[in-house]
């Protein structure tokens, strides 16, 4: 059963004083199965951030439907949307988005505290996650005191602690050095192995090559997809690169 179903998404932005209209997404349809690890690739301006915002219910599509476990996101009232997001989705951002007013531990607790979770349960949930992500030592530090890689792992912990149906990652490696990038991608793959569904938006081939399936998006449309199959990371990397070169040189696929 697919956990996420996206059909016929269109998004048009119009300038404030009428006139110029920009079509960010033309017609996007795809679905994500439970336990999948999907990467969406595209150049800047291809509409991938718009797509992610729509999936995160941060933005609403002009046309089309997004179903999460059969529930239409459009049907959720504005007032309930934040809570829906909190209960069902986990987020990992390029810029980490940790609040500097909290310690790392409290940053991770934030969604649980908002959900009214008792302290004991929060610590019980955190312990295995922190161990898995290798961050037990920095829980009492403040975001400004730790490295980028550590920040991103803390952000992953924050995304995971609510046991979300889907983790949405927006360029999670964009602000990391190559070593931290490798660590984080390994982490994503491991987390995925435990059954966590992940949807990642990226323009990095390396990041995409750690996923199980890559969707290519261009000019507001999904125009191709690759399955990893039995490929190693390196082989999959090569195939993604080949596809991108083909696109760039104007070759037609399909």
């Amino acid at each position: 059963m697919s956990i996420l179903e996206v059909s016929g998404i269109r998004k048009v932005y119009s300038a404030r004083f009428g006139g110029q209209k920009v079509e960010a997404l033309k017609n996007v349809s795809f679905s994500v199965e439970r336990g999948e690890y999907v990467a969406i690739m595209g150049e800047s301006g291809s509409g991938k951030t718009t797509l992610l915002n729509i999936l995160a219910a941060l933005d609403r599509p002009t046309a089309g439907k997004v179903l999460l476990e059969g529930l239409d996101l459009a049907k959720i009232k504005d007032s309930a949307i934040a809570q829906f997001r909190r209960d069902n989705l986990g987020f990992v951002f390029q810029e980490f988005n940790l609040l500097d007013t909290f310690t790392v531990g409290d940053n991770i607790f934030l969604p649980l505290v908002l959900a009214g979770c008792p302290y004991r349960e929060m610590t019980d949930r955190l312990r295995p996650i922190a161990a898995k992500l290798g961050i037990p030592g920095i829980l009492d530090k403040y975001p400004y005191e730790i490295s980028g890689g550590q920040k991103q792992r803390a952000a992953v912990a924050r995304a995971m602690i609510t046991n979300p149906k889907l983790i949405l990652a927006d360029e999670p490696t964009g602000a990391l050095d190559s070593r931290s990038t490798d660590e984080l991608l390994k982490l994503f793959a491991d987390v995925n192995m435990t059954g966590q569904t992940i949807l990642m938006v990226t323009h990095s081939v390396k990041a995409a090559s750690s996923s199980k399936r890559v969707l290519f998006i261009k000019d507001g449309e999904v125009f191709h997809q690759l399955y990893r199959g039995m490929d190693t990371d390196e082989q999959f990397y090569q195939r993604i690169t080949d596809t991108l070169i083909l696109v760039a040189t104007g070759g037609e696929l399909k």
Partner: protein
Amino acid sequence: MKKLLYPKLAFESIRKNKRLYLPYILTCVGMVAMYYIILYLVYCKPVESLPGSGMIREMMGLGSWVMALFSCLFLFYTNSFLMRRRKKEFGLYSILGMSKRNLAQIQFWETLIIGAAALAGGLFVGILLSKTAELILVNIVSGEIEYSMSFSPEAVIKTVYIFGVIFLLLLLNSVRQIMFSTTMTLLKSENTGEKPPKANWLFGIAGVALLGAAYYIAVTTNNAITAIFTFFGAVMMVILGTYLLMIFGSVMFCRILQKSRRYYYKPNHFVSVSSMAYRMKRNGAGLASICILATMVLVMISSTSSLYFGNTDALRRSDPREVAVTYYMDSFEGLEGLSPENISKLRSALDSYHSEHGVVPQNVIAYREIYVPGYLKDGVVETDVSIFNTSDVALIDDGLTCFVFVPLEDYNQTYGTDYTLSDGEALAYNVHTNFNGDSISFNMGQTLKIVGQIKKFDPDSEAVTQIFPSVFLFVPDLKSAVAGLDRLANYQGDPMLDYMWNYCFDTGLSPDDQITYGRSFLQDSFDIKDNGFLVSSRSARIAEYDRRDFTALYGGLFFLGIMLSVVFIFAAVLIIYYKQISEGYEDQSRFGIMQKVGMTKREIRKSINSQLLTVFFLPLVLAAVHLGFALPIISKLLLLFDLRNIPLFYAVAAGCFAIFALLYTLVYKITSNAYYNIVSGAKEA
């Protein structure tokens, strides 16, 4: 072209950062205008012709220095906000290849433009308003003045000079900051200071302790003399304590809350408490300043307006008649001087002076009195002179009372009564005390039986205006009543007793003539000394003259109080505005993150609202507490100005607070809109 580059850059950056610069320039304009107005009142001609002008000018002169100091501190404070935002731009210029010298040049032009605009605008507004202010002042002190547009060149020159210096200092400060920072620190300066606030227990507790001690002093000071000495110290402690409490104490408090897991990890408290710690760290100084300014405004306005409105009341008591004269008899022949024969001779001499000048004295109050100071305790009066040698003023004030013997005969004659007393009996009348014993016994003197209290009496002005209490004792015979006491001598060997004759009357003349006649009467009647009446000196009061003098003094104080209050309120409003704007920018990103993590807009708004409310009303609440504790000690101080109508003072203070709170709330409403505009403007992106 190249020559004009820096002025152009400076001008453009001011134009483009309007939202930041406009309030700053307006602040400068406001400060210049206020300073000019106060200075104008020192120099302008119309004020010179007012009664008590010397006093007003002196106060305004003093006020102008306070104003200059405050302007300087305040402009430094607001300028620091600007610098923080500007540094990033300077960092960019520096990367693009500008040297620090060039940056300093831009800064120079910027300061020049702002300074010139501020001085031009400020002087214009100041000259326009000074006329209004002058009219208000003249009105308050009830003088008369013709309307003519005027301005004072001296005030203009001094304003330009003082603010020139202030702007120069500002420029030097910014140049210093540019010189001592690298390109990278410039670029990042907007993000520094984001370290988590640490609770500083030492300073936090010191703040609480200082405030506690100051409050204790304010509440336990029970007399005016001590108040003079302790008030200043208490004020300093309150100021220091407020800053420590706001900056360190508040963070400490948030940390304590965070330690309590049950309290902290709740949806309502989690975000609020942790961001409060940050907010307080950033705004502690600003909030403390607001609190101090608010307290100063409240204290100033309530005390000066009480003095102004209460002074008629005070005057009526201290000057029951138009002219009041006290003749002091030669102390070695006091009883002789107060003999009925001598007094009636003196009085008839005065009466003939009146009739020579065609004046018929009316409502005459005339009585003799003998005065002795002493400690009153349980009906026994200690008159031992050695006690009065002490230099400890406060000790003297502790229970020191003035005892005044008045012949019953004089009372009956003045008030048309027919009280009778036998030997050893007395009637009493209290001034600023509530002595109600059955008898009073003077050490080294007589014991008097108090048979009753007198209701209606006009005590001499000295008894009314001095801070020591007095007990008037009406006795059948002066000589026997003071028997024994007349042996008392002070440490210089002079007799302790004072022998006086009070003589008060209305003239029925016009106010101006009252003063003229009163003066000539006093002048001429001083010759009486040589005429063998045993008078050694005399003191006098002319009610109308006093009234004018008082009105000028208290009117001037009141006006200065209002002027400074307006300036302080203005400053407080600007601090608030800057706080809201700067916080708005800092909260933009946080607002966005919280939304992504799953807080609803309503939750965020609620949390931010409660934080803003707390931060905003904390200074007001603390100011109210400060004022509450200050009232007792200030009311003691006001005794020195002969303001004894304490309920009036408390009511005025309460009224001032209500008005101030209303104003403050209004400012909150307006500025929080600015804040929301910034915060919500960002989340669209």
